[in-house]
């Protein structure tokens, strides 16, 4: 009994050491991609700053500065109480800096939520398909193929037209909606629409992860150690969650970080076509889209959210790039 326990702890220790060193290797490799490191710092910084949004700005998110007659107003506009709008005010007279900060929270949360849900779901579905093979695999692969066949942007437009129309369709559990409301610093009513958008984007988002994981699982399930585990009586769920998914997680991580940037851009495209998150909930995408009619007149108005959007999106891409290099076991540098 004791020996067994000892050996387990020993094994655990060994594993820990091994994983730790592996993490260190990955980190070392990642560090070599300078732009990825810079991006990581920048994106984290923007994220941290956005968390402090209510502290950093004296203005409320939707407060309209009724005093300023010029809407939109240029950077440096000063309101009745003598407070400065650092980035000016938008077409409604709302402080642009404040809204960009709040939008950072919403946009980045949307991106993270979409990616988190779709990659998790995709990985799970892919693992199940690959692990069981046979009928299950056939069914799932066909569904994936089917989804890939439907042109995605056209369908995305239809879906958002249907689901973003009303705020009463989705029965969200109270705690979730409260949590999201706190995360996005937005009233619970607005959270509904954000969740809708997330789900609409997830609808197409999980496909690539599922395909990746299916491939990995397919080859893993044929390997001896899985057979051994089965023979030892491990349950399917345990094998899938403890062995298949962890082993195939690397490419998923890479595709996830690349997808993060994509989601932000897609959201802005939907907004341009009038089908994204609606005002007054700010996202970089809808701020950019609503201010596009001011493009010729007040170019800074779209420029502010535009710059943030592009920087963060590029940042996510670089991080993905760096991760790819770092996680690739064949790359030994």
């Amino acid at each position, binding site marked *: 009994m004791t020996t067994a326990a000892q050996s387990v702890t020993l094994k655990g220790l060994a594993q820990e050491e091994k994983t730790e060193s592996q993490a260190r290797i990955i980190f070392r490799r990642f560090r*070599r*991609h*300078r*732009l990825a490191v810079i991006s990581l710092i920048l994106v984290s910084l923007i994220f941290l700053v956005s968390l402090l949004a209510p502290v950093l700005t004296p203005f409320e998110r939707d407060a309209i500065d009724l005093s300023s007659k010029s809407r939109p107003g240029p950077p440096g506009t000063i309101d009745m109480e003598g407070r400065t709008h650092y980035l000016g005010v938008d077409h409604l007279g709302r402080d642009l800096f404040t809204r960009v900060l709040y939008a950072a929270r919403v946009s980045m949360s949307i991106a993270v939520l979409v990616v988190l849900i779709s990659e998790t779901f995709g990985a799970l579905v892919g693992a199940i398909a690959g692990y069981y093979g046979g009928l299950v695999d056939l069914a799932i692969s*066909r569904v994936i*193929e*089917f989804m*890939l*066949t*439907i*042109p995605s*942007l*056209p*369908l995305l*437009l*239809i*879906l958002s*037209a*249907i689901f973003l*129309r009303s705020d009463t369709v989705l029965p969200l559990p109270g705690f979730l909606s409260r949590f999201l409301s706190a995360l996005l610093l937005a009233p619970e009513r607005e959270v509904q629409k954000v969740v809708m958008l997330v789900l609409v984007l997830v609808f197409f988002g999980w496909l690539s992860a599922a395909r990746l994981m299916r491939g990995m699982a397919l080859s893993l399930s044929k390997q001896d150690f899985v057979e051994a585990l089965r023979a030892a009586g491990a349950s399917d769920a345990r094998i899938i969650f403890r062995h298949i998914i962890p082993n195939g997680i690397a490419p998923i991580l890479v595709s996830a970080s690349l997808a993060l*940037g*994509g989601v*932000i*851009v897609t959201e*802005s*495209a939907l907004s*341009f*076509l009038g089908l994204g998150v609606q005002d007054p909930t700010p996202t970089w*995408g809808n701020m*950019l*889209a609503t201010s*596009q009619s001011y*493009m*010729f007149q007040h*170019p800074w108005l*779209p420029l502010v959210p*535009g710059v943030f*959007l*592009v920087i963060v*999106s*590029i940042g996510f*891409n*670089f991080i993905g*790039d760096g991760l*790819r290099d770092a996680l690739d076991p*064949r*790359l030994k540098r």
Partner: protein
Amino acid sequence: MTNYLIRRIIQMMLVVLLAALFTYFLFNISPGGPLAGIQQQQQRLTREDLARLRAQYELDLYWPFRFSRWLIGLPNGPITIGGRDLFANTAVGCYLPRDEQIVIQDGQRVVTPAGCDQYVYLADIPELHPAIRSSNGILRGDFGRSTVIRTGQPVWGEMMTRLPATLELMLISTFLSFLIGIPIGIYSAIKQYSRFDYTFTTISFIGSAMPTFFFGLMLILVFTVFPNLLQDQFPWLPKLPPGSRLAVRPYAVAEWLPRVQPGTGMDRFLHLLMPVGVLTFFYMATWSRFVRSSMLEVMRQDYVRTARAKGLVEKVVIVKHALRNALIPFVTVAVLTIPGFFSGAIITETVFAWPGMGRLYYEALNRSDWPIALAFIFITAVLTVFATLLGDILYTVVDPRIKYT
């Protein structure tokens, strides 16, 4: 291989049918529809007026029947076998629907459930939906008639007027993006982590991160609006036409250039500049990234290392061994751009008033012209499955190790 092809083609047909059914269903449940807002037009509409209007858009039929009429043109009346009409009295729709009504009678709430006051029977179809306005079915090559965008006109004709513009735009920008993107990708891979690599990686990430409408409007601002507003200070600045495919009358680009006549090569070129610029930038980013990573992948392979070890010149190694193998996945993915030649670029076409398919589709979606939107999705789906198949077949051609059975 033949067996494989047959199986694949059957699967493809199924997938396309399912996709069509799915989108048709989505349209059916989406809010609005072609009649939205009709009651806000400040005129008195009776129930009969509304019913007649609904029938004009075939909204009186239940959606599965509508779908089958759209797909195969049936049912178009009772089924006649041996001189007898069968199923003539089968209800296929509701001409006069009735909502749930709640009236108060003697202090009691009387609920009359929603229902139908007048059904549409198979026998009514020839009269309610005359052949001249009905579709023969998309499977029989009849894409039906537009309901809103081009009331009563054939969808096919409408799409064919848009196709040349989209083809022109997409082919040119795809070609250019290959031309620029592939060499950049290769060079970036060879010089991984060099300054060149970083620069172009950044540029290509900007390409894929910048929303196209934003980029497009920036171009219009810089090349059309500013030069016009700054005419007095900088009269030599050329003013590019901001959009459309062709001009309709002669115009001047800059005073040091002759006036451009509409329809000439110069006119076409000038109008293509900005939309092609935006799309090329966008696609180039994707392709150079793709080529770079597949190049890197190949250069790590044993046979490349062996070739290097054998002392072959680096150039030979790259061109003969690495490049050839790196382009295998590229070819198969490049095939997937084919559906795009048909479907165009929704946002770019809108921003630059390019009279292409993407704009048509977006307008159709916005104004609930379902026949046009469905035809668009159907054709795109067909092209997508064929492109996928083509990609898979090409794979076996470029990489003989792979065989399908």
